[in-house]
C-alpha cells in the first residue's frame, strides 16, 4: 500500500443493494471498494486478479457459505471481517479470531473495525517485507 493511495477493500455480498450500500460507505470512509463479488467463485477470481488490503465477507451467499473465500484470504494473510444476519451462528473454529459484524451495519459500526483491519494488514505486510513498522506510521 503506497502512501496517499486509498486501501482496497474487497466486498463479498450476494445482495447487490447491500453491496451498493457498503460500496458507498467504504467510499465515504476513504476506501476503495473491490467487487462486489456475489459468489464464492467470483470472489476467489477477484483475489487472484487484484490486490486487496482487507475484505468484508457476507457469511451466507444464497445457500452457500463464504468460508472458502475466508480460507483463501487467510492463506494470503489478508485480514477480513464477517457480516452476518445470524445472531449466534457458530463460525468454524479457524475463523474465530475474525471480527463479526451484525447486519444491517451502519457507517459508524463499520469505521473502527475497518481501520483495525487495515492496520493489521499493514503490520502483517511490513513484517513480511521486513520494513520498519514505525516508518509506515
Amino acid at each position, binding site marked *: 500500500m503506497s502512501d496517499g493511495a486509498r486501501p482496497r477493500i474487497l466486498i463479498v455480498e450476494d*445482495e*447487490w*443493494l447491500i453491496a*451498493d450500500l457498503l460500496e458507498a460507505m467504504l467510499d465515504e470512509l476513504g476506501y476503495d471498494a473491490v467487487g462486489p463479488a*456475489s459468489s464464492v467463485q467470483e470472489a476467489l477470481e477477484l483475489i487472484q486478479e487484484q490486490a486487496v488490503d482487507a475484505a468484508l465477507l457476507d457469511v451466507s451467499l444464497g*445457500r452457500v457459505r463464504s468460508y472458502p473465500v475466508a480460507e483463501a484470504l487467510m492463506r494470503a494473510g489478508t485480514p477480513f471481517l464477517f457480516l452476518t*444476519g*445470524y445472531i449466534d451462528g457458530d463460525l468454524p473454529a479457524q475463523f474465530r479470531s475474525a471480527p463479526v459484524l451484525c*447486519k*444491517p451495519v451502519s457507517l459508524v459500526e463499520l469505521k473502527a473495525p475497518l481501520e483495525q483491519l487495515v492496520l493489521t494488514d499493514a503490520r502483517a505486510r511490513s513484517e513480511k517485507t521486513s520494513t520498519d513498522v514505525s516508518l509506515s506510521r
Partner: protein
Amino acid sequence: MARREAPFPIVGVGASAGGVEALEGFFRGVPENSGCGFVVVTHLNPERRSLLPEIVGRYTSMPVHVAADGAVVAANEVHILPPDAILDIENGKLRVRKPISLRRERKPIDIFFSALAMDQGECAAGVVLSGGDGDGTLGVKAIKERGGLTIAQSTSDSSGPNYPDMPESAIASGMVDIATPAEQMGTRLVEFAASLLNFERLMADERRDDDDKALNDARHEICAIIRNQLGHDFAGYKGKTFLRRVQRRMQVNHLDSLEAYIERLRQEPKEVSALFRDLLINVTNFFRDADAFKVLEEQVIPKLFAGRGAEDAIRVWVPGCATGEEVFSIAILMQEHMQRLAAKPRVQIFATDIDDHALSVARAGRYPEALLDSVSEERRKRFFTYDDGSYLLTKDVRDICVFSPHSVIRDPPFSRLDLVSCRNLLIYFGADMQNQVIPTFHYALKPGGYLFLGTSENVSQFADLFTAIDKKNRVFRSREDASRVRLPLSVSGFRPAPFTPARLTGSHGAGPVALRQSVEGYVLERFAPAHVVVNRDGDIVFYSARTGKYLEAAPGAPSRQLSTLARKGLRLDLRTSLREAIETDARVERSGIVVEGEDDRVQRVDLVVEPMRDSPPEERLFLILFTDVGPMLSRQEADNATDRSDESYVQLERELRDTRERLQSLIEEYETALEELKSSNEELVSVNEEVQSTNEELEASKEELQSVNEELHTVNAELNGKVDQLDRANLDLTNLFESTRVATVFLDRDLVIRSFTPAVSEIFKIRPSDRGRPLTDLAGHVELPGLQDDIRKVFATGETVERAVDHESRGAKYLLRLVPYKDSDKISGVVLTFVDVTTLANAEAHQQVLIAELNHRVKNMLAVVISIAEHTYKDAPDAKAFKDRLVERIKAMAKSYELLARENWTETLMRDLVKPQLAPYGPDRVALNGPQLRLNPKQALSVGMVLHELATNAGKYGALSQPDGRVELSWDEHAHNGAQEIQLAWREIDGPPVSEERNTGFGLKLIERETVRGLGGACNIRFDPTGLQVSLSFPKEAPNE
C-alpha cells in the same frame, strides 16, 4: 299395620351360605320397576365389614342402601342389613339395633320376617334363599299366618341353591306358597304387587251392593265345595280373610278370575285340600285355640297328675310336632301344674315329626315375637327369656321335651302314654290313613289315656275306641273296655277288627260260614267249660261266659291280671300251672283244686292250661279251662270228701310242698330280676340324660361351625369379586403399557428385573424368561454408563432422575427416567422408563434452524431496505417525494413477501406475482400473457421488485400515465445453452412520446441490477418511440440456489 296411600309389598329376603349367588339370581330376575321394597337379611360376621351392598348393587339398577335406623322402606329400593345388627320394622320404618351379645345363635331372618309380618300383614312377602340352617322357617310361618306371600328357592332342580337346608326347611313347614328358582321370583313378586292393588279394588267394590252379591255367591260356592269334599264348613269364616286366602291360592295357580278358580276347585280335589289347609293356618302358634287348651289345662292335666307320686312318670306323645309350638304349649301347662304339687312326677313329652329340619327348629326352642301372640305376659316372663329379638324357652320347659324323628304311619308307636296330642295332623291324612292312625293312638295310650285333636279333626267313627270328654274342643278318652291289640297292626298292614264276636252275634241272616260261627259261638257259650285266654304276662285277653265262679274283681285299680282275679284257692295253682305251661310250652293239668265260692261253699275244679299253637311263640297265648268236678259242697263236705281219699290227699300235700318250694324260688328270682331291671333302668335314664346334653352341645357347636362356614363362604365370594376386579385392573394396565409403547422396566434393590413391558425389547435384548435376572447381565442397544450411580441416587434421595440417551443403531433419542418404586413409604425398587423423544429432538433442532434462517432473512431484508432508502433518497427531489417513493417500494416488497408467506415460501406462480403489482391500473389496461410458470422465492422477490419499478414508471411517465395507454406483459420458458431460461417482455403501447432522459434514475438501475445481479440474467431496455420495451431473461435455476 301401617296404612299407605297405595299398598305396595315389602319383601324380606333371607339368605345365608351360598346366598351371594342366590341373591344375584334373585335381583337379576327383579325388574327395575317392580313396585316392591326389598330388605335383605343375611348372616354376617359381626367383626367384619360386609361388601354385600356393593355386590348386590352390581346386579340391580335399584338404589341399594345399608339399612339405617328410621329409614322408610320405599318401593323399588333395596335395604341391606349391616353386620352386627338386628333389624326389625315398625310402621314401614326400619329399626336397627345393636345385639346385646355376640353369640351367633340369633336368627336374624326369623326376627325380621316376623316383625315384617306384624307390621305389614298382607303386604308382607318373605323370600327364603340358599342357607345352611333353619333360619327363616318360623319367619315364613309368621308371614303366612298374617296373610302375606311366602316364597322359597326350589331345591329340586339343577339351578337350586348351593345350601338347600334353609329353603328346604321352610318348604317342609308347609308354609311356603311358591317354591321356584331364584331368577323367577321377581316375576311372582310383580304379580303379587299387582294383586294387592287388585284386591284393594275388589274390596272397594265389595261395598257396592251388586258386586257384593256376586262375591258372596262365589264365596258360598267355594264353601260348598269344601263342605262336600272334606265335611268342614267355613261359612262362619270372616269374608275378607277368606277371600284373601282364596286370592293367594289363585295367584299360586296363575288364575285371575274367581270363576276360573272355582272351576279348578271342582276338578282338582288336591287344590281343595290345599285351600283348606291355607284356611286353617290362622294361629299355629302357641296355645292355638285358647279354649281347647283351657279344657286341657283344667280338665285333663289335673287328672293326669292325680294319684301320681314322685316315683311315677307321665308320658305324653305329640306326633307331627312340626316346629314345636304345640309341644311347648303342653310343656308349659305341665310345668304350671307341677308348680302346685309337692311331689312332682317325672313328665316326659315325646315330640316327633318326619321332618328333621322342623325338629331342629323345635329343639332350638327359639321363637320370634310374632308367634307369641297368644302367650300371656305372665307366661312370657315365666317361661321365656328375651334374647336379641327372639324368645328362648327356659330350660325347665325344654328339658321335659324329647324331640326325635318318627313317622306315625311307618314306625312303631310309643306306648303306655297318658296323653296323645295330635292337633292338625290328621287333616293332612286321607280316610285310609286316619283309620290306621287313630287305632294306633288307642294302642299307644294307657287305658283311660287322653287324646287331644285339632278343632277340625274327629274320631267319631272310632267311638268304640274313644269316648268324648269335650266334643267341641276335641278331647277324647281311651276306652278301657275296648279290646287291646297287642301289636299295632298297622305295622303289618292289618286293619284291627275289635269286637268281632259281638258283631257276629248281632248279625243274623249271614252266609253259611257266619251261621257256623254263630252255632259254634252258641255251643261255646252254653256247653263249653268256662275258659279264659291269657298272654305270657298272665293278662287276660279273652273271657268266655260264666267265668264268675272262678274269677272275681280284686279291690283296687281294675286289672286283667289272672292271678289277681282268681278266686281264693285257685290263685296259687293257676299261677304255677301257667308258669309251667310257659316254661315247657306244653299242656298242664291240675285236678281236684278246691275253689272257695260265696257262702262258704267250695267247688272242686279241674284245671287245664294249654298253649295255643297258632299264636306266635314270643306272643304265645294260653287257653285256661275250668271244669267243675261234682256239685258245690259246703266246706265240711269238702273236707270229708278229702278224708275219703287219703291217698290222693297225701299226694296233694306232697305236691303242695313241692309247689311252695318252687314258688319261693320263683319269687326270689323275680325279685332279683326286678332289682336288676330297676338298676339298669336307672342307668339307662342317666345315660339318656348324658346323651341328651351331649346332643345339645353338639347341636350348638354345629351351629357355630355352620355360621363360621357361612361367613367364610361370604368372605370368599367377596374375595372372588376382588380378584376379578384385580384381574380387570391388571388387564387394563397391561393394555395401557402395550398401547403407550413406553419401554418400562421394574427393578428391585439389586437391579433384578421384576417385570417389563414389551417395548423394552427395542432397548435391551430381553426375553420373558429374563425376569429375575439382573439388568446388568443384559446386552443393550443403548449405552447406559453410570446407570448404577443413577439408581443409587434414586434410592438415596427418592427423587426422579432424568437424562437423555441415544440409541446406537436406530438413531433414536430416548428420555430415560428413573422413578423410585414406592411400596407404601419405602423405596423398594426403581422404575426405568424410556420415552422415545426422537421426533421431539428433531423438531427442536429444526426449529432452531428455522429461527436462525428467519433472523438472517429479516436482517438481510432490513439491510436491503436501508439500501433502497439510501438510493431513493439520492434520487428524490424533495422529502415528500422521498417518502412516497420509499413507502411504495417497501409496500411492493411487502406484497411479494405476503404472497410468498401464503405459499409457505415454496414456489409462486408468475401470474400471482404480477397481478398485485399491476392491479391499481385495472385489468383492461394490462394484458397478461404467459404459461403456468413457477418461481422460487428469491426469483419471486426480484421479479416483484422489477415489475414494481416498471409499473410505477409507466404510471408516472409511460403508457399508464395516460387514459388510453396500455401495457402488454408476456412471459415464457425455453431452453438456452442447455439450461431452462425464463423470458419476460414488457411493452408499453399508446403512451406519451418516450425520451431516454427521464429514465436515468434509480428505478432503471434497480431493474438492470436486479436482473443481472439478483437473477443472474440479462436485461434489455429499449426506448422505442411508441413506448418503452423491456425484455428480461434469466436462468430458471439461479446459480447460487
